């Protein structure tokens, strides 16, 4: 049974999606989607445990051996990302019922859940596959379903945001497709491991260089790396709250994973970092992004938008870690990829709860919520402390490794800017806290109660995870370090 887990991981949500559509308008679609998400989480946990215990898993789809067939190849890095996606998928789905009922019309809910499952399928597929073209296919599955999900937002700007995302996302994935095509042209293979073996022989050709450029730009667009992030704030702001929570915590992270995978296990660190010196571009974009986007977050008046800008800044941290191409840097980047997923998921779920109760994610809507929704707001504060990087939260762990890596490689500016941006994070988190705790509710507004338990529990689980993994770092850092060592060693 365990041998088939890799394909089951993908099949569960993939088959769940059409079933959701078939169940029609009832509440059944929700329970089906939830069951799929939980099952998917279970499988992801098993996969990670197996990988950590016995080493990488290779699964040949349909029994066709690579490089002819498609192969799923699961190592420490992607089993970690799989777990993140599955975990957030499950938590978000747990919280989804009430929020979706209030934001999505009844006749579209089963489509909504189908799209959520498809999006999960795509993200899981990108992560699990060992075939470059397969990455593109899953990328498009995830992207198309997320355009649909964003367009379901109840404000009309959601449509425009979705349209913009569609254009930019398509350009991004087409760029990646071009890059994969050019690689195929030079090597005649699409299997990642095979590509890695054959590329060094042709590494100096113009075709490979061009493919690298197309790939980097395409993937930067997908993961919203500054300055290609402009599609993201609108998309996250106007999407249904549950969708924001899911996409913010997983979609960009998976794109970052794709970048790590291509950089380290296809092009190889020797080509990407030593020959081309991609560190310089990545590092400077990341640093500028961290500072400018953190500053931009301060000026937002919508909490979803504020969190979206902060997400772009946090992507900067991850990319910064990767750009060091050292063990500590990569560990920091990978661990932050996971940690930030937890934190942002939790924060967006809090916003979802507020939208559910108050009906808006405007800063003004947060007035007095410290009193009206004490537990929810407390969770926000804890999550916010993580964003700042306060010790005993996961945010601190990631920053620690990033700073350590920056010092090791002598990037003093990076150290200073990362520390500076922590202060900016204090301010943008504070703005929400200020409205929640220090501003009275409007007298004529309706009384507001605590968020429903079904939303509080998954949020609390995520927040708890940010603290548990902030104190006991053995597991997260251990896996991330294993992945980093694996990648730097040039393995798949």
């Amino acid at each position, binding site marked *: 049974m365990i041998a088939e887990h890799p394909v089951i991981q993908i099949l569960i949500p993939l088959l769940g999606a059409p079933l959701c559509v078939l169940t029609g308008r009832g509440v059944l679609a929700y329970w089906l989607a939830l069951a799929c998400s939980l099952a998917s989480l279970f499988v992801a946990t098993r996969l990670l445990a197996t990988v950590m215990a016995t080493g990488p898993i290779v699964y040949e789809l349909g029994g066709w051996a690579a490089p002819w067939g498609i192969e799923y190849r699961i190592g420490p890095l992607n089993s970690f990302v799989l777990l993140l996606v599955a975990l957030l998928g499950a938590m978000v789905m747990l919280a989804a019922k009430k929020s979706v009922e209030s934001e999505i019309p009844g006749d579209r809910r089963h489509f909504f859940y189908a799209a959520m499952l498809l999006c999960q399928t795509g993200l899981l597929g990108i992560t699990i596959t060992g075939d470059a073209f397969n990455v593109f296919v899953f990328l498009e599955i995830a992207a198309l379903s997320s355009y649909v999900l964003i367009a379901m937002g109840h404000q009309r700007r959601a449509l425009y945001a979705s349209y913009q995302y569609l254009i930019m996302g398509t350009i991004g994935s087409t760029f990646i497709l071009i890059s994969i095509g050019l690689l195929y042209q030079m090597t005649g293979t699409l299997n990642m491991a095979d590509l890695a073996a054959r590329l060094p022989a042709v590494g100096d050709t113009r075709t490979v260089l061009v493919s690298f450029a197309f790939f980097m730009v395409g993937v930067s667009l997908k993961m919203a790396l500054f300055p290609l992030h402009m599609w993201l704030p609108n998309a996250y702001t106007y999407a249904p709250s549950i969708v924001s929570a899911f996409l913010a915590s997983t979609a960009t992270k998976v794109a970052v994973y794709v970048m790590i995978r291509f950089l380290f296990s296809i092009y190889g660190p020797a080509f990407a970092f030593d020959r081309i010196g991609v560190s310089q571009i990545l590092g400077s974009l990341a640093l500028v992004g961290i500072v400018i986007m953190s500053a931009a977050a301060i000026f937002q008046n919508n909490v979803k938008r504020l969190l979206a800008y902060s997400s772009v800044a946090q992507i900067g941290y991850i990319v910064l870690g990767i750009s060091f191409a050292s063990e500590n840097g990569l560990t920091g980047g990978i661990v932050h990829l996971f940690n930030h997923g937890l934190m942002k998921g939790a924060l967006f779920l809090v916003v979802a709860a507020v939208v559910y109760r108050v009906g808006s994610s405007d*800063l*003004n809507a947060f007035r007095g919520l410290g009193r009206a929704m004490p537990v929810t707001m407390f969770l926000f504060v804890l999550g916010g402390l993580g964003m700042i990087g306060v010790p005993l939260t996961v945010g601190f762990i990631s920053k620690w490794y990033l700073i350590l890596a920056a010092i090791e490689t002598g990037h003093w500016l990076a150290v200073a800017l990362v520390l500076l941006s922590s202060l900016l994070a204090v301010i943008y988190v504070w703005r929400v806290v200020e409205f929640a705790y220090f501003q009275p509710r409007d007298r004529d507004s309706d009384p507001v109660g605590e968020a429903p338990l079904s939303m509080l529990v998954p949020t609390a689980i995520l927040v708890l995870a940010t603290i548990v993994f902030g104190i006991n770092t053995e597991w997260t850092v251990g896996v991330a370090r294993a992945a980093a060592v694996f990648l730097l060693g040039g393995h798949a």
Partner: protein
Amino acid sequence: MMSENRPNEKQYWFDQPKNVKLILRGLYVTCAGLFLADFFYHRHVDEPMEKIFGFYGIYGFVSCVILVLAAKEMRKLLIRKDDYYDSAEDGMPGGNAGGNPGGSKSGGDAP
């Protein structure tokens, strides 16, 4: 003096000018005594300047006068109205710049 407006109120010790004078006289006498004590008591001396007769008394007096007069001059330079900062901090980006007209008295200013 407010206490004069309250004829029924109990008279406190310091309300009597003669008591205040008593205190002051006590102070003068003590100071004189301490100053002259240098005659009778041989102080242990580490620094040459301590040998000056009545050094500590003079130093204490002079430094206090200089302190107060200097502070008085400093005040002319530094004094601002009571609400100086309150009026200045509106329109801070961290607080409520734009788009949030209801929050006219929000804090959260960021340096």
